[in-house]
């Protein structure tokens, strides 16, 4: 079994008003050194697969078909093997 973490973010070319608003909030707290803040979605899931490659392939398919909308979003997948359930 594999445990996957999938992070979905708005494409870099797309304005992220939510991220901008939160960045302004952080600046209001006095952290002027924080910038380029972007907000995305975090998904974690378990997948039964023969090996890491198959687990990654399944996660990429699920990401492209449902979790992210390729018109406006990108996603990354990171996978670790789970030995104890």
């Amino acid at each position, binding site marked *: 079994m594999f445990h996957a973490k999938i992070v979905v973010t708005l494409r870099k070319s797309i304005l992220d*008003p939510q991220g901008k*608003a939160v960045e302004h909030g952080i600046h209001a707290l006095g952290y002027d050194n924080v910038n380029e803040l972007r907000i995305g979605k975090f998904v974690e899931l378990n997948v039964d697969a023969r090996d890491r490659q198959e687990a990654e392939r399944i996660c990429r398919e699920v990401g492209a078909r449902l979790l992210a*909308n390729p*018109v406006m979003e990108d996603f990354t997948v990171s996978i670790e093997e789970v030995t104890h359930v």
Partner: protein
Amino acid sequence: MRSKIKFAVVVFPGSNCDRDAFNAVERIMEQEARFVWHKDTDLGDPDVVILPGGFSYGDYLRCGAIARFSPVMKEVVRFANHGGVVLGICNGFQILTEAGLLPGALLRNESLRFVCMDTFVRVERSDTIFTESCKPGEVLKIPVAHGDGNYYTDEEGLKRLEDNGQILFRYCSAQGKIIAEANPNGSVASIAGIVNTAGNVMGLMPHPERAVDPVLGRIDGRKIFGSLIHSLVRKDNESFSVHS
């Protein structure tokens, strides 16, 4: 020959404009209408499918992202690919983009605020089945109510929409000027509604079904339903005269 057009209004869990749409076409426009539950796989041989506004599946993940996998959507896609007329309003527009029946996507409003107000939209083309009762450049007053209506497509996508004449409605001032102040959500090129290249699938964020009854102070939405009804009745009569 048939005098009434058959509308199928799809109901997803979380749809909330389905009854308004039904009322608009059945009571106000005096056509036939029936509801189709999202789990149904039979549309009932309609002339027009309406995907209504609302918050299907709680807008989880992305607006329309889960609804597009509803059993009924397979039939809607098949219907559209065979030339059937599909009208997506608000959440219905979002579902059509998620299902790939219309290009682009609808992002969170630029202001991050839910907008609920009257808007003016300019009719960019009056030679489509959705707009033939309008004059070119006519300004319609139709309300919007959405949090994710910010139409997005990249530069190439926008060029394709413009080259193909797919933009049917743009947000404008009461006088028909396309200005930033009249754009309620930050949509690219002030886009309020688009049609597919085949001309049979249209999505728009404003709610024409909320602008059909004079009791509510606005009736411009009738022009969109009226266009559809006229064009379909005409097509019916044409094929009747050919076959008889």
